């Protein structure tokens, strides 16, 4: 197959970027999308031009490194598929493809198609962990986990943090990501001791990082390579209501200006 590519090129964070057009030839349908870009980069290297920067690691859909928009859809439009797992047979010979990086103020572009997603890390640092002392390793099945809780937590834990939800959201909101991380821990018995504080911290971190606010468009779940449902956003909202209203003897705390802690 031969394809026409229009790719966003930007040399560094604050540089102005622009689209450049490229042509790739002799692409086989069994190549992955990233292998197609590898082929393009070999050509560019041979010609002495800077290769197109894109992020990747596992190339098997589990690490969450890869991702950009192909013709306006995050990860290219095949349901439940990261761009590294997207094979070229999804396209036709002669297709024109526009490749654009995630765009959100919380995800500054580092170069070409690579964005800085450390805002996600900071949301996780705010509460995406269990630190309550749990003693030494418990006996198997000492903590009973209801089947439904285990299944829900597992579905939520499938989130790889690729950022497609933010990229696709008309509001650039990080609700799907944060709700997946919260649902994962808040559904499990081990997550209960810190449930309210975690929810509050992560909800606040989300706003602090400059993400937008959800209006229930559902674009996030449509492009999520792990098919995380927006039902989890509902879970998160309820957990925040719970955190705010539950009567307690010691108040929850909120970080005042954790931006300085970076």
């Amino acid at each position, binding site marked *: 197959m031969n394809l026409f590519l229009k790719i*966003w090129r930007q040399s560094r964070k604050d540089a102005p970027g622009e*689209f450049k057009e490229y042509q790739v030839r002799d692409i086989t349908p069994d190549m992955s999308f990233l292998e197609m870009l590898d082929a393009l980069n070999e050509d560019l290297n041979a010609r002495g031009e800077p290769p197109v920067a894109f992020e990747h690691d596992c190339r098997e859909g589990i690490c969450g490194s890869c991702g950009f*928009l192909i*013709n*306006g*859809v995050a990860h290219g*439009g095949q349901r439940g598929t990261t761009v590294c797992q997207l094979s070229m047979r999804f396209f036709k010979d002669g297709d024109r493809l*526009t490749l*654009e990086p995630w*765009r*959100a*103020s*919380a995800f500054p572009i580092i170069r070409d198609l690579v964005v800085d997603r450390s805002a996600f890390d900071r949301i996780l640092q705010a509460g995406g962990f269990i630190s309550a002392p749990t003693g030494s390793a418990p006996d198997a099945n000492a903590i009973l986990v209801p089947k439904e809780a285990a299944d829900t937590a597992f579905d939520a834990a499938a989130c790889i943090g690729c950022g497609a939800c933010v990229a*696709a959201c*008309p*509001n*650039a*909101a990080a*609700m799907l990501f944060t709700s997946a991380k919260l649902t994962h821990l808040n559904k499990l018995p081990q997550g209960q001791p810190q449930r309210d504080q975690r929810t*509050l911290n992560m*909800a*606040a971190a*989300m*706003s602090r990082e*400059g*993400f*937008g*606010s*959800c*209006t*229930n*468009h*559902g*674009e996030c*779940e*449509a492009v999520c390579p792990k098919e995380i*449902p*927006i*039902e989890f*956003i*509902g*879970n*998160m*909202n*309820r957990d*925040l*209501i719970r*955190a*705010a*209203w539950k009567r307690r003897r010691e*108040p*929850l*705390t*909120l*970080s*005042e*200006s*954790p931006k*300085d*802690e970076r």
Partner: protein
Amino acid sequence: MEASSAATSSVQRTAQAAERHVIPVTNPLAVFWATAIGKKVVMAITGVIMIGFVILHMLGNLKIFAGPDQINAYSRFLRTVGEPELGYGDALWIVRIVLLTAVTLHIIAAVQLSRMSWAARPTQYYDHRNVETTFAARTMRWGGLLLAIFIVFHILHFTLGAVGFAPGQYEDLHVYQNVVAGFSVWPVAVFYIIAMAALCLHLDHGIWSFIQTLGWSTARNEAKLKVISRIIAIVIFAGFISVPLAVMTGLVH
């Protein structure tokens, strides 16, 4: 000794850092208003209050088809309900205050959250294709603005009789006569119908949206809830526009 004092000072430093950065949250309402999710929940709850009102309002309007005596008596009833415990018009004022609070909070949250979302994507995509969202969902903000303008006009019009009537034409408590006179001016009737179309769109997304925001929508029941939401929005639309249409076609005169 050295090590232990170093340890103490680092503990102190952490404690100071903690003091500087961590604030106890004692007011649940403040937590709510401090987060985007909290404001979104406020929008949902105020939305539900307004939906409840809108449904009752629509049903009340339909009394016009029962004739002048019926609807004018209903108008009087709204003012005398609760007597003698409440004075004349008190119940109505309670409802008005609740609604005014709801609409104010709804608009403040809408404006703040919209600005937050616009700031979150300063650079637009060159090419962006939507997959799942609907026209209704995408017009919530501008449709909401139209509704706000409509609400102001509507109050000036049928509640106060300050606009849209010839001098002396509007008479308090003569609902039937006021409605016929009001909708006999066709641009006014058309504006009402357009506003109700905007309401229909707002609720087509809004009803399901509040269910989702409050965590009742699941992957299993989502499709069904969206259909129910659309049906309710259309019924509300049909109920409301039946009145201007009836006046315009001469059915009610």
